[in-house]
């Protein structure tokens, strides 16, 4: 679709040789057409880099420009060959700022059939940029299974038939063998059986334990019959405009992460402290939102879930992403139980919740094992928790019978959950219904079963929290255009004019806060940096970007950029048929906690008011969901007005 006015953003072009390439960029986009089996490098201009930066900034614009239906009125669906799968990095990827292996996946996802922005790390971004590319744009559909191999200027679509059926870890192992490489010399992002079988919440997994998990991006890859992307660590060089400045900014960020109270535990233990901390505020989801008391989980002893004990329960070792000094990602070896000796990726908080508390399981060894099995099958561990917990509850209450499912699945039964995982990722039996994701499966069953299911009306599911005590996340998740949180957690909110604290159960305050924080996450997700290593003052992140590129990037500009990106995603979402009527939690998701710290706090009672406030604060039309012409003008997106508002604008 061609935007209407002359101020429309330029398509990435080769014509701007006049301006030197900013530092931090490799300089090329790699366009891969699976129908035609072609791969070609497209240089992009310094002006476009400045405007779109990379990551979701670049991906959102590509989706908007390239996924409209031919008549320009609608949007292609997730399984259409014209859908794009954008695997983007950003200008900081590959530089010595902590956590800069960044990958942002943008596509029309299978969950909401709308735009996606989902991140992973490892060494994808690093290896890709040292091969000379800032992003990969995949289009078309192949008839046979292929994988994309990139080694500097050698870019090939190779036969992947021998990889079909392998899980993601096996795929990486097989590609190590095939290329004779190991470790970070080869970054592999792939899909497992769930992606191959188009499970609606299939993820893309890479580098042993890093997952771009949201909105069924793995199903898109499966539909395109692209089994994996394997990138050799290239031999090209990256330049920074001010290399000393990059290291100085990296040091500032590192200092903040090590010492600031809001990031210190993350630095030490990654997201492990989430289990105990969130349980204290009633935000740890337990048994499919039926309770908020950990004591209701058989065998649960919260004292062994404190972060140090959780980590030390395993034989563990740091497994960091590019240039990262956090003590976050780890590989672990299980020491006890049935799975003794197995290597697993240390679960993130969301793994402990999705494969543990949400399904009523509290045995750390088996939860860690199930989490890695989810990664290997390539399902989103969050939606997995909501799906599996829902099936368990439905069986308990008789809404899903033993005959329907084929076996009995009780709360906390990890082995049974694993059996279900195999059924879902291979679409076997009742697994075929469940593979459609929580919302579609719940609607198919209907009745009281539907009332127990946790989802958003758009078709996505929330992150692994109980959002009934984190209202800002529920509002953000439901109003987002990208199937998951678009605004993100508040980090140093006062830096951008927001209050340090709000009443978390005052809908009005929450809505204003969510609207006021808007912009930051879309900016961060455009840089090729990890969301956790950017938990510092935005000013430091801007300094790193400025030093890398040579631009003078300010905090205000960063927020404006982020808001602009979110609006472009919203324009695509509207074209996909997403309306304000879908911005609601399901009955269970929006229910009132019956026990625990947030007992009695009823978000649904305030929901309409929250939406009213949020819409008014962000400058969108409450009725149609469209960004108002004035909002578009303020963000320099006048060119969107005509397509959104026609001649009324």
């Amino acid at each position, binding site marked *: 679709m061609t935007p209407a006015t002359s101020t429309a953003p330029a398509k990435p072009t080769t014509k701007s040789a006049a301006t030197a390439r900013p530092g931090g960029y490799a300089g090329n986009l790699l366009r891969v057409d699976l129908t035609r089996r072609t791969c070609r490098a497209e240089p992009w201009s310094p002006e476009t880099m400045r405007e779109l930066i990379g990551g979701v900034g670049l991906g959102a614009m590509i989706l908007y420009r390239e996924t409209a239906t031919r008549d320009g009125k609608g949007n292609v669906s997730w399984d259409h060959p014209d859908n794009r799968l954008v695997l983007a990095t950003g200008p900081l990827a590959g530089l010595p700022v902590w956590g800069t292996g960044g990958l942002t996946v943008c596509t029309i996802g299978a969950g909401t059939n709308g735009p996606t922005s989902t991140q992973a790390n490892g060494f994808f971004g690093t290896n890709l940029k040292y091969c000379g590319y800032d992003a990969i744009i995949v289009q078309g559909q192949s008839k046979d299974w292929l994988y994309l191999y990139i080694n500097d200027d050698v870019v090939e679509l190779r036969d992947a038939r021998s990889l079909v059926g392998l899980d993601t870890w096996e795929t990486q192992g097989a590609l190590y063998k095939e290329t004779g490489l*190991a*470790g*970070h010399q080869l970054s592999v992002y792939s899909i497992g059986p769930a992606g191959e079988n188009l499970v609606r919440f299939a993820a893309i997994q890479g580098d042993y334990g890093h997952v771009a998990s949201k909105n069924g991006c793995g199903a898109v890859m499966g539909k395109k019959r692209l089994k994996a992307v394997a990138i050799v660590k290239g031999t090209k*060089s*990256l330049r920074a405009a001010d290399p000393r400045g990059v290291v100085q900014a990296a040091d500032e960020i590192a200092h903040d992460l090590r010492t600031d109270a809001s990031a210190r535990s993350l630095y030490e233990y990654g997201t492990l402290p989430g289990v105990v901390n969130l349980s204290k505020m009633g935000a740890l989801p337990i048994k499919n939102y039926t309770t908020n008391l950990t004591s209701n989980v058989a065998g649960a002893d919260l004292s062994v879930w404190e972060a140090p004990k959780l980590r030390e329960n395993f034989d563990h070792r740091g497994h960091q992403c590019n240039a*990262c000094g956090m003590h976050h990602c780890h590989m672990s070896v299980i020491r006890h139980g049935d799975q003794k000796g197995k290597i697993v990726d240390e679960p993130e908080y969301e793994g402990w919740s999705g494969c543990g508390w949400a399904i009523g399981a509290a045995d750390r060894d088996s939860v860690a094992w199930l989490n890695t099995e989810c990664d290997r099958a390539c399902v989103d561990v969050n939606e997995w928790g909501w799906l599996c917990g829902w099936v368990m509850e439905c069986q308990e209450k008789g809404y899903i019978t033993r005959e329907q499912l084929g076996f009995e699945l009780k709360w906390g039964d990890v082995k049974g959950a694993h059996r279900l995982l195999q059924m879902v990722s291979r679409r076997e039996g009742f697994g075929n219904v469940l593979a459609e994701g929580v919302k579609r499966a719940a609607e198919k069953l209907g009745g009281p079963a539907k009332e127990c299911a946790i989802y958003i009306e758009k078709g996505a599911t929330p992150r692994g929290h109980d959002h009934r005590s984190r209202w800002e996340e529920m509002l953000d998740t439901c109003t987002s255009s990208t199937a998951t949180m678009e605004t993100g957690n508040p980090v140093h909110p006062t830096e951008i004019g927001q209050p340090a604290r709000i009443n978390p159960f005052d809908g009005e305050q929450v809505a204003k806060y969510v609207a006021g924080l808007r912009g930051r996450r879309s900016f961060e997700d455009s840089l090729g940096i990890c969301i956790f290593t950017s938990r510092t003052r935005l000013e430091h992140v801007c300094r790193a970007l400025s030093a890398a590129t040579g631009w003078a990037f300010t905090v205000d500009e960063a927020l404006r950029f982020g808001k602009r990106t979110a609006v472009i995603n919203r324009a695509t979402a509207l074209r996909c048929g997403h309306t304000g009527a879908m911005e609601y939690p399901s009955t269970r998701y929006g229910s009132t906690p019956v026990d625990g710290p947030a007992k009695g706090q009823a978000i649904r009672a305030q929901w309409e008011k929250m939406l009213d406030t949020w819409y008014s604060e962000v400058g969108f039309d409450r009725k149609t969901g469209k960004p108002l012409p004035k909002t578009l003008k303020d963000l320099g997106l006048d060119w969107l007005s005509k397509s959104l508002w026609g001649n009324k604008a």
Partner: protein
Amino acid sequence: MSVLKLHPEKCTGCLRCELACSYMQTGEYQPAKSVIRVSPFEGHTSYAPYTCPQCAEGWCMTACPVGAITINAVGAKDVLDDKCVGCKLCTIACPYGTMFYDPATRKAFKCNLCGGAPACAEACPTAAITYEDVATADWLGDFAVERTARVLAEAR
């Protein structure tokens, strides 16, 4: 004297040392030109950095037919670019695999301890690479003896 000590058990494979080293070597970030390399072990679960141990024997110096490898002020074997003819004999002679050849410049290159302030040690976030004063330059030999004795004892 000071030497680079490597502590593989602390390495998390973040490869920040390679970035810092390549920047010192080339003025740009280009890990392919780093003279410290991080290798994966046990599949993908552990990593270890390695670089020139500045060995006492100095095989590279002995092999060089034009005397292009010298010992610099901080005790590191260093390649003199103006003398190196790019014959690669040093890369064959080195038993550690830490002599490199750059086809772009047609010269050999190696760790020169950054003139006494090694960038890799500075960049390492977990202190897996340290620059320390030691009694003997051949710390690697001592390490090998100690480790072999330990592994043998454990095997028994």
